[in-house]
């Protein structure tokens, strides 16, 4: 479904990604792990066309994604739930959700999608009139995920959804991710909770200094010596 091929990318003169290749199959749950600054968010931003490629290609269902303008990515069926939520703080929860469904197809199904999303996140229904910026961290994360779902994506990308959340809330978020995955949506996730995410995902890639250094089934990587040393402190 998604193929990232030999991608080089960076900011200005600073190259961050070096020959990064990986793929995500339809209905898969794939995780990217790596230390701070490894380039995980940058990968997601290149997929969303927010960061231009220096080399390589990105394919999504037989289309070159890296030639698509940033604002057109969502039309291809990709939702990006960015690092640190990036909500529209001075707009209500409902307005944030509406803005998640601007493509013609998503707009036509807005009402129906809203009901689905409110079912997944009953809390948001209660808070729909509240300004997004005044909600708690956990509520904001839910709002960000819900906003991503509003576009009815085939693939949804989560960038550190557990950032700043308590272990309990983190569990909730992961359970929701599995629930969303169970509904047939492909997931690409970046996470710092390496142990937990490796346990629930299908496959994972390990990034180091902007390069992919390991790849494998989640449960297999949990047993990998390198992973254990680098992330699990064993």
């Amino acid at each position, binding site marked *: 479904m998604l193929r990232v091929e030999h991608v080089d990318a960076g900011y200005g003169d600073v190259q961050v990604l070096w020959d990064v290749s990986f793929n995500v199959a339809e209905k898969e749950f794939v995780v990217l792990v790596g230390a701070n600054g490894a380039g995980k968010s940058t990968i997601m931003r290149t997929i969303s066309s927010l960061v231009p490629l220096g080399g390589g290609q990105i394919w999504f269902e037989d289309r070159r994604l890296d030639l698509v303008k940033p*604002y*057109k990515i*969502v039309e291809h069926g990709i939702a990006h739930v*960015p690092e640190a939520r990036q909500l*529209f703080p*001075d*707009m209500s929860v409902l307005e944030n959700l509406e*803005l998640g469904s601007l493509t013609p197809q998503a707009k036509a199904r807005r009402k129906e999608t809203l009901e689905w999303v409110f079912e997944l996140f009953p809390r948001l229904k209660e808070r729909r009139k509240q300004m997004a910026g005044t909600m708690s961290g956990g509520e904001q994360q839910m709002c960000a995920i819900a906003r991503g779902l509003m576009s009815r994506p085939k693939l949804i990308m989560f960038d550190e959804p557990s950032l700043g959340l308590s272990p309990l809330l983190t569990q909730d978020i992961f359970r929701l991710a599995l629930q969303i995955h169970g509904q047939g949506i492909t997931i690409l996730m970046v996470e710092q909770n390496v142990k937990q995410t490796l346990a629930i995902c299908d496959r994972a890639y390990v990034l180091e200094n902007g390069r992919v250094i390991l790849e494998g089934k989640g449960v297999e990587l949990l047993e990998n010596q390198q992973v254990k040393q680098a992330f699990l402190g064993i």
Partner: protein
Amino acid sequence: MEVFIQTLVAGILIGGVYALIGLGMTLIMGVMRIINLAHGQLMMVAMYITFLLYEYLGLDPYYALLIAPPALFVLGVAIQKYLLNPLLEVDSIIPQNQILMTVGIGMVLTETMRFIFHSDYKSVKTSYSSATFMIGSICWNVPMVVAFGLAVLLTACLFLFLLKTDTGKSVRATAQNKDAALIMGINAEWITQLTYGLGAAMAAAGGTLLLPIYYLFPDVGAPFTLKAFIITVLGGMGSTVGAILGGLVLGVAESLGATYISMALKDAVGMVIFVLVLLFLPGGLKTLTKV
């Protein structure tokens, strides 16, 4: 007391029009984070359009509201597209270059109009230009009352657009978080063009409304750029509700200054208010209105 109320009324009426003009600059400030220093000059161009329509076609200035603001909208979109946005690509993240560009645009507009129309004072003398009516002992100037009413109406339309339509929400979203807006599928570049166009159209509407009571000359724009800037800062740099309040405050302050101090010091009073707000309410009137 009567004089005071009369002064207040005059201030509020002109303040409504100031608010409309200031809102245009505020909107541009909110979305693009630049101060549009060509704002008053865009207004001046609209006034000349309205003047021409009146002079050669005999069109009433209020009908020109259907022509001058749309014309300035198109001009604004073109300015953003061909003059301001390209600067972002040349030299990313520094909005200062764009501000300098707006100064240049303002000068070009002024000098072009001076070339075509010379520096002569023009005016549109309609049958109602000096018409008045009385309520109690307060005298109401008809074109000012109409200008205020239409300014309020246009402002209400703008708010409906910003609050109720998807495109309006996209404008606010782009102002709040551009990258997130892009991810949502908002064409942020078009939104900047739309915003500048709307800002220019609002300045144009303000100018057209003022024409029946103002003299028109090529340099009429600069003081209005300053007024719009004061209103934007008073409002809290990007707050639309703050800007409305800012416009009214400026109108009333000028009016009080003209009555109680001196006509010549009218503009100085606006500056004093400006300085006071910067000193004592650095967040602008937004701190009071919370939006």
